[in-house]
């Protein structure tokens, strides 16, 4: 692959990336969230069409127009987000799109045989071949997904975070298999956030940062720290203003809350950060605190309010949440900016259930100015804005509501560096110790480590579903955070 470029609207996901893998080699691909890894592999598989660049397989020009052509050319892919048909059986999922037939009919015996063999290679003869995939656990589903790539047969195999929900034994089984495939002459690309996995299984690694090649080299001899340094890039310390903060009353108290067995207390005038890898359970913790998911056990207290509550009640208690899933849960894309911005507190714009759209718009116009949102005006539809500007609207909604506790899940996802700085400034102002105004409290999840280190007062690390003790930010460096999240190099 050479000079691959791909942009989605205003977002440049890939900006001239080169990648080469030879037969019999495992190449690790690493980089922060949004670096462009999945996009690059999507281009390779034929699911995405590059804007520029060319690809060759075995020297022959390769320009797949669809995933079918990619498959025919021998590229098999395990997607990051599980992509299985929940209603179909394991066998059918494994062989979907490549079913063996005889006289026009499915050759069920051969299908079962092939699927069984693929799973056996993974060391799993125990998975029921006829069970619908929707009834299986997430980890088993991931194995099925891996088996799919194996069963089809391929020359290039791409694994996009195949181990995010696998246990150690399965990971080792997979690694053994990858070594066998390598010996058979397959070219393998292995994407993972678990750096020690990459160093363990790959021969070579390549780091992507912001859609560009940021370095690489043989894994032998590369230290964990060196790779992290390549991933994280230059210092961004100046991004984060930090005014004087004074810790005030406790406003959110969480005790041995499941999932996550989380215990912490959040005070006014502080930002508590939660670090962790993808799938470590941070989002679920926040959703449980906010009442979007049931509290299985444990306790949540907001100021004077004890016990579980619905999101409706949480807003009234002065807690607001920003979802990480902007598209599914963040904004009503069909509605205009003013509606999106004011939805949680419409009562401020009229009396007795009535509303004044002009007052809504006036308020929205104020936030558009303060947050420098690029748009045609408060009446523009939210769906027409770029992702970063959408995110700003979602944040503005919390500010507009004037909540005391802000629960932020990946608040700067999809936001460019300039906008990030603005948001950090705003966040900082909320918790700053200013006279005549009670400071807010912020609970924040982020996968962007410099951000956590830059804005938080305390950070707790979540690993494989358990939240550690919050510690002052000074106790961590980026390196140490990454170590704590991945298991300190002692095996994930």
């Amino acid at each position: 692959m050479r000079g691959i470029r791909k942009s989605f609207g205003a977002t440049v996901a890939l900006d001239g990336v080169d990648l080469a893998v030879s037969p019999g080699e495992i190449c690790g691909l690493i980089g922060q969230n949004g670096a462009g890894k999945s996009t690059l592999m999507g281009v390779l598989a034929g699911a995405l069409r590059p804007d520029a660049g060319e690809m060759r397989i075995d020297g022959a020009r390769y320009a797949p127009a669809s995933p079918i052509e990619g498959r025919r050319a021998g590229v098999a892919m395990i997607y990051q987000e599980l992509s299985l048909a929940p209603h179909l059986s394991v066998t059918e999922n494994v062989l979907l799109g490549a079913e063996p037939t005889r006289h026009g009919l499915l050759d069920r015996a051969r299908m079962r045989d092939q699927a069984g063999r693929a799973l056996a290679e993974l060391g799993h003869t125990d998975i029921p071949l006829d069970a619908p995939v929707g009834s299986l656990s997430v980890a088993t589903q991931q194995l099925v997904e891996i088996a799919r790539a194996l069963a089809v047969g391929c020359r290039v195999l791409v694994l996009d975070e195949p181990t995010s929900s696998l246990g150690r034994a399965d990971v080792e089984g997979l690694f053994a298999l990858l070594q066998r495939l390598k010996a058979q002459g397959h070219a393998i690309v292995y994407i993972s956030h678990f750096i020690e996995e990459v160093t363990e299984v790959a021969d070579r690694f390549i780091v992507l940062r912001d859609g560009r090649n940021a370095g690489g080299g043989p894994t032998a001899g590369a230290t964990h720290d060196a790779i992290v340094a390549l991933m994280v890039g230059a210092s961004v310390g100046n991004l984060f203003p930090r005014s004087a903060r004074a810790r005030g009353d406790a406003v959110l108290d969480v005790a041995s809350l499941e999932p996550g067995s989380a215990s912490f207390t959040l005070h006014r005038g502080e930002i508590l950060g939660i670090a962790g890898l993808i799938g470590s359970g941070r989002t679920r913790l926040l959703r449980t605190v906010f009442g979007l998911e049931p509290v299985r056990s444990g306790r949540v207290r907001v100021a004077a309010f004890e016990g579980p509550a619905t999101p409706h009640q949480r807003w009234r208690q002065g807690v607001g949440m920003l979802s990480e899933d902007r598209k599914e849960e963040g904004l009503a894309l069909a509605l205009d900016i003013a509606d999106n911005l004011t939805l949680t507190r419409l009562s401020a714009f009229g009396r007795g259930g009535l509303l004044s759209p002009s007052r809504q718009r006036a308020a929205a116009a104020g936030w558009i100015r303060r947050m420098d949102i690029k748009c045609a005006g408060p009446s523009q539809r939210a769906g027409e804005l770029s992702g970063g500007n959408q995110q700003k609207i979602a944040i503005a909604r919390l500010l507009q509501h004037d909540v005391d506790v802000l629960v932020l899940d990946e608040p700067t996802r999809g936001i460019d560096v300039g906008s990030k700085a603005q948001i950090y400034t705003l966040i900082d102002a909320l918790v700053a110790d200013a006279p005549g105004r009670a400071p807010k409290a912020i609970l924040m999840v982020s996968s962007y480590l410099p951000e956590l280190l830059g804005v938080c007062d305390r950070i707790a690390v979540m690993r494989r579903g358990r939240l550690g003790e919050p510690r002052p930010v000074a106790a961590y460096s980026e390196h140490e955070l990454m170590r704590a999240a991945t298991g300190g190099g002692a095996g994930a």
Partner: protein
Amino acid sequence: MTARSLVDRAGTALGLIVVAGVFGALIGPQFFSPGNLELMARQTAIVSMAAIGMTMAIVSGGIDLSVGSIIALATVVIALLLRMEVHPVLAALGAVAAGAACGLVNGVLITQLRVVPFIVTLGTMLIIRGVAKGLAEERRIEAPVTWLNDLLRVPRGGALLPSGIWLVIGLALLVAGLLRYTRFGRHVFAIGSNERMARLCGVAITRTKIVVYVLTAMFAGLAGVLQFSKLSVGDPTVAVGLELDVIAAVIIGGGSLLGGRGTVAGTLIGAAIMTVIQIGCSQHGLANWVQQIVTGIIIVAAVALDRMRTSGGE
């Protein structure tokens, strides 16, 4: 309104103008005579009334297939009450109350059983139709003629339009205002546009949805009052399949079955387009079947155009 929504509405209104223009050219200026315009307004009144309610259900991302049955039930209830010598106003209110009860059942089943509105209202469509037939003992119930039967009549005095039409206009303005200028209305849009986001933002989903289905069914009840007014009989077999006309009016008017989009004005224009096609075809001497084909094509074309217009924004 915003520039965007003006364009949206202009699109549908343009469709109405084109359709009306074509028939005007085919039939001659008498197509636009006051009498003919009034005829159109009267014929469109029942579908419009039900469609105002349906707009809310569709904006909220749902659907109500039971409106035709509710209309039938409403005519039966009025006729029975009138035969019991209840005051006409109370009889009409009784019909609306019967509608509200049906809507409550729909809303509660949809939110509590978490079954999709299509299935719930498919079931209640049968149930309510059965109840209407049972109440009427499977008969047409003739009722004494009262002023209720003048609701869609050409008025004798100075009033420009029959009072039933004024009722439609008044309620249309009310619902347009409800959707635009109240918290409830914005919550309906939020639910339809992105239900998960609405939940995150603290919108009371269950309560709002129940109110939506109650209101939708109350409008169907009012449509039943108009239907009764036309024939002065309680007819449990009336309005079979009308739900599809009603849904089509909303969708031609810019509503989306995926929710979050739709306006009362658009809906009324959608209903008007269908009536113009119908009356135009009939007065041009075109057969019923041509009319059906033309209506079908306009429905698909309207939504396809809409899809193209909005696909840029997705």
